[in-house]
């Protein structure tokens, strides 16, 4: 299993997860990487992402995995892909995977919200519970944001607040930083940026 670390920024953040999968598939084709296809009636490239990244969020170090049908040097894969990616996507490094994406438990995010202060956040976060509506497979459900957020820190900047959020991420439990933004600053005109910075396993080891 070959793991590929990449960055998603600039105009590429407006790609949805599906768009990104399509884009990477085509990039692998263009770069002539000997990537393996799935079996079956409608074969497609074997391509697994660490965790979907919602449209609008920058990914500082995201991952996906492929299987190779013949050997190719990691550095060659990196260079070939980088030569054919659209603006905002960049391969950081390519290596043999040692662990499983299933082990991902949490992720770090950095969120900037314009026009808010650390004090605003602290007041918001000091409430005993912070109920909000979350879309799940079963429909809309009310969850307690406060209980879901693993940890957070707020810091003032010139024109807004920067939140460092540690949130559950993965198949078992997941919280989108966009839900945090929406609950904290519900005005739809609020300008924000969000980035996912790192993944961790249950022991807190960085991926």
């Amino acid at each position, binding site marked *: 299993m070959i793991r590929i670390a990449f960055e998603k920024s*600039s*105009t*590429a953040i*407006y*790609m*949805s997860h*599906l*768009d990104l999968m*399509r*884009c990477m*598939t*085509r*990039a*692998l*084709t*263009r770069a002539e990487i000997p990537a393996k*296809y799935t079996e079956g009636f409608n*074969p497609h490239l074997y391509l697994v992402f660490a965790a979907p990244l919602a*449209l*609008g969020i920058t990914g500082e170090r995201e991952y996906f995995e492929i299987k190779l049908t013949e050997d190719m040097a990691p550095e060659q894969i990196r260079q070939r892909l980088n030569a*054919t*990616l*659209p*603006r*905002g996507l960049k391969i950081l490094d390519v290596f043999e995977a040692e662990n499983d994406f299933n082990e991902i438990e949490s992720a770090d995010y950095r969120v900037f919200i314009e026009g808010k202060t650390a004090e605003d956040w602290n007041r918001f976060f000091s409430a005993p519970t912070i109920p909000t509506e979350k879309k799940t497979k079963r429909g809309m459900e009310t969850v307690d944001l406060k209980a879901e957020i693993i940890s957070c820190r707020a810091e003032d900047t010139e024109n807004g607040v920067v939140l460092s959020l540690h949130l559950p991420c993965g198949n078992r439990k997941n919280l989108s930083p966009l839900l945090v933004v929406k609950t904290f600053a519900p005005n*739809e*005109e609020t*300008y*924000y940026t969000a980035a996912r910075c790192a993944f961790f396993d249950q022991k807190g080891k960085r991926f």
Partner: protein
Amino acid sequence: MELERLLLRVKNPAWYSGGELNSITKDKNRVKTRFAFCFPDLYDVAMSHLGIKILYDILNRRDDVWCERVFAPAPDMEGLMREKNIPLFGLESRDPIKDFDFIGFTLQYELSYTNVLNMLDLAGLPVLAAERTDDMPVVIAGGPCTVNPEPMADFIDLFNIGEGEETLLQLVDLWQECGGNKREFLEKADRLESCYVPAIHDRKVKVRRRIVKDLDRAPYPEKLIVPNAKAIHDRISMEIMRGCIRGCRFCQAGMIYRPFRQKSPERMMENIQKLCQSTGYEEISLTSLSSSDYEQLPRFADLLLDYCTPRKINLALPSLRIDNFSEELLKKLRAVRSSGLTFAPEAGTQRLRDAINKNITEEDIFESCRIAFQGGNTAVKLYFMIGLPTETDEDILGIADLAQRIVDYYYQLKTKKNGKGVSVTISLSTFVPKPFTPFQWEPQIGLDEIHRRQQLLKNAITSKKIRLNYHEGKTSVLEGIFSRGDRRLGKLLLTAWKKGCILDAWDEHFRYDLWMEAMTECSIKAEDYAGRRYAYDEELPWDVVDCGVSKAFLIRESKLAYENKTSPNCKEKCLGCGVKSICGGDVCDPNCL
């Protein structure tokens, strides 16, 4: 930048962000001419269109020209742009297009006309050509609708009629020669064969449609922009030929793209290899009006399959004709991917099929179905039209009858797969009379009559195996008004757009009520345009354009329709349609001319 602050508030930010693979960025200080290529519809439709890709490539091959793409924003984005005073911008540079040299629109369908007005307005320019000053960009238009430029004449400075591959560059040259003097440019451009400047053109001088004689020598892109967000047709389009040898009497494309020209398999394979390498697309679609008329189809198909199969690339052949498609070819195609089969008999009875010169017999239809069914297909889609000239209720009932007999035929065939039922889908559209067709003088049926005929067909269908799809009909009426419209319709367009009519091709945005209001205010009636029989000897709004096909030929064909008589296709016998007046007479097979 201001734009970034808005993108996360709209549904499809990737439609406005730019940055796609193979999009072209240049240093604006090092180009002489900036061109905004506008497709007046939403991104996912626009990015599916082949013509824009060809012209984008041709313009950008020149170092001194920078062509960018501009599309109609969806209402959510438009609202924010207006609120924040962000003028319409080129996707590549994000610079306002009001500072460009050219703003070029491609007019592919009448229902995009209000979007042109809206885009000019969003750019911060007056929509009326007469109100734009000399320092504002030249607004030009091309595309199939411009064979009748009159309804848009109030808004466009210059129409460039016909295939733009060569003429667009000539216009850029002329612009540079004139040193960007708009008035001088327009005066000189109006004297070019294919150009029409409505403000100054002498109607006695015919504007002649330009064609590219040799498709093999015409430039074809080596790279295509790969959208970040999915386009409706997200694949490689390979144009295999232009024009059509069939002369279906309702079909404008079959007339205004004459003469029939084919590309060689070698040249296309060269194009395809480059395009596959530069895009990584997983599907190739062959575009033409009637793919099975391509003479070297078997050989080309073999070459294609040899290339595509090991690379797992799908082939789509959207316009395979019912009467001569080869069983062999279908079998081969299925090796790559099977898709449902579509046929276009267009009319339900042989009598009407003869009248419209759709040279398909009932045997052809059943033979095609046999091939489809025996090849394992159980779904067939049939395209029909209502409101065709000479149509009677019997012809409409004939559609239901034909569909029913196809269902019955499926169950008679021994090949029927256990447990698998057949499904026949009828896709019904409404006839719209179009300029430069033998039916250009015909009236269109009114809205009530459209509804009555749709209902008649609906009631005649009893089997659950048959599905009927049709459009309500109001947009067809509007199309009928504009396709044969004259310059007075400029006022209607302006009024309707001011009332809020945009994106008329989209059901969820189409506002027939507002159109009706606008028509009343402008004292324009559908019956005077769509619903009127134009006379053979009357001066037609589009007489200023010479498309190649002569009026004498169109009248001959129109009269044959009333005798239910078919005409041979161009390969069987040349009908002397007149197109040699624009192509020189050496493009069609010399034996037939």
